[in-house]
């Protein structure tokens, strides 16, 4: 590592630096272990670079602006297969539905667990339940969702065929199951945030004659807003990237979004369609669709979205001070 040049020391003084630590004196096992750790780190960097470069090259070469605005069309010829407008919309819908359900529920769960948590047996049970959901493979969640949502009394969430059978497949049902995927991340982030709020903040509020509920709503939740945002963004990343749930709870072969019913907005939510993940899967060399190039382009877009979300998390968690100073500079500029 390059060190900054020191200004010259006053005459007669020699600058002393700590001696460089060599590994020459280490036992062989330690040296081997050290180099192994070093090598794994480097290898991981190489793999990451490979993924990004590969997707960049493959993706960008096939990426056309028109792909974003044209709907997919079933065709054996690549040039007539259309774009991935519908999958992008599908991804947005699924993410929105999933996040809108998971965020309030997750924050409420975290607040209850951290601030009340009584009876403690129930709290332990809730914690275990969240852990189990977090550990459940998404394909299992998806199958479970299909089972539940094809019950006839839940027919309003998806499409009911003429013979009365409920498909259980719609953006709404995907969104609900996706919410389960995001929930543990949001709960964990919010609880982490709450555990970092010092108790004196709570006491200050109680000492002003505020109830516990008001303290949570007006002091604690605003204080942990960055943590909540972090959890939500992580959850969104999970939702956007998940494939199994989409394949099972939206029909795979459908590439165009198909509304169900006539109520605006609700018809799209009750309808089926595709997302970027199912589109990539369907059109990849492994799937039935035959638009490999478009699959690469869509995969690249997906990667970019997830990377952008990751950067958002970094901004939220680490870049707060900078954002604050920018806001203050703006304010000062507004009122001279």
């Amino acid at each position, binding site marked *: 590592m390059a060190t900054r040049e020191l200004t010259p020391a006053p005459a007669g003084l020699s600058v002393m630096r700590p001696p460089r630590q060599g590994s020459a004196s280490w036992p062989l096992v330690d040296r081997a272990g050290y180099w192994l750790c070093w090598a794994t780190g480097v290898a991981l960097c190489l793999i990451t670079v490979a993924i990004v470069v590969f997707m960049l090259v493959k993706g960008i070469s096939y990426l056309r602006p028109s792909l974003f605005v044209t709907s997919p069309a079933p065709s054996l010829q690549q040039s007539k297969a259309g774009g991935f407008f519908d999958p992008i919309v599908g991804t947005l819908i699924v993410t929105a539905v999933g996040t809108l359900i998971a965020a309030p529920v997750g924050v409420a769960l975290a607040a209850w667990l951290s601030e009340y948590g009584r009876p403690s047996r129930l709290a332990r049970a809730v914690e275990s339940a969240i852990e189990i959901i977090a550990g459940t493979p998404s394909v299992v969640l998806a199958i479970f969702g299909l089972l539940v949502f094809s019950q006839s009394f839940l027919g309003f969430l998806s499409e009911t065929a003429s013979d009365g059978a409920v498909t259980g497949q719609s953006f709404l049902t995907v969104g609900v199951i996706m919410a389960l995927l995001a929930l543990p991340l949001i709960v964990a982030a919010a609880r982490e945030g709450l555990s970092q709020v010092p108790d004196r903040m709570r006491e*200050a*509020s109680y000492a002003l004659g505020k109830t516990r509920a008001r303290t949570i709503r007006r002091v604690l939740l605003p204080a942990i807003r960055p943590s909540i945002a972090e959890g939500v963004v992580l959850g969104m990343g999970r939702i956007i990237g998940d494939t199994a749930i989409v394949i099972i709870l939206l029909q795979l072969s459908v590439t165009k979004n198909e509304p169900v019913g006539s109520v605006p907005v609700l018809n799209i939510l009750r309808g089926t369609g595709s997302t970027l993940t199912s589109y990539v899967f369907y059109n990849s060399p492994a799937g039935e669709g035959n638009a490999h190039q478009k699959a690469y382009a869509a995969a690249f877009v997906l990667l970019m979205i997830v990377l952008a979300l990751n950067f958002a998390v970094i901004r939220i968690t680490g870049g707060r001070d900078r954002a604050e100073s920018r806001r203050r500079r703006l304010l000062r500029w507004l009122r001279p």
Partner: protein
Amino acid sequence: MERLTPPPARRIVVGRDPNVVAPAPSPNGATTAPPPASARLRTERSPVAHVRERMRIESVWLAYGENWVVRDVSLPVRQGEVLALIGASGSGKTTLLRSLNRLTEVTAGAARAGRITLDGEEIHELEVNALRRRVSMVFQQPNPFPMSIFDNVAYALAESPARGRRRRRSAELEQAVNDALRRAGLYEEVAEDLDRSALKLSGGQQQRLCIARSLAAQPEVLLLDEPCSALDPISTATIEKLIVGLRESVAIVIVTHNLQQAFRVADHVAFMHLGELVEYGPGEQVFDRPAKQRTREYVGGAFG
């Protein structure tokens, strides 16, 4: 001015420490004891016309779990004067203070025996949040909320103000916030930007903001738990002046480790040791003519 007779204090039986120079035996002959009051400066104070009792602590015992940390303490809390609780660590003074607005109840396993009354009403029979609005507390560490200065004070005031920057600030709310900041002597320093984050204030300013926040709800009693222990001498002096100035409109109880501070601000001083009230009386008396052996040792710096 009605003066209460000092409440009965239980005598602590302790073996004479051989290393402590035995003080003169007569209760009033403080020959070897601390320098006289004139040697130390009391915070300047104007006389208070009307002193009246607001709270009364009667034979109070307090426990956390199995241990009684306060034993049979009786004290009056009067508006118009500052009551300082002094004593070594573990003497129960902070616990006693926290029990006055039932903040001890936040800790699991807290118990109390005896009566604490506010204007004659047992505080246990009052609604706890109503009580805490009447008996407010400022803590050792400045603990402003992570919001703007304005919101910090407005939070204490308003039942449900609209949130966020789009808040419609009613003239009344603004007036009340400014008043509270003025009473805490902070208004001049922060007036130009009340939207600034409270966390950007200095420690002394933060503590005065906490006092402003406590004063905003117009409490009748203000409890201060070592409010200056985290502050520099200049901030401390500002806050002490503030405390003395406030005593006319609110009854003030201050817990302090700092004997000089107790002497500077207090009208009455209560010395506690190991959960018991050893001595209670006017500040000059407790510091210059302590009646009890233990008090003499403590204010003389023999332990603590």
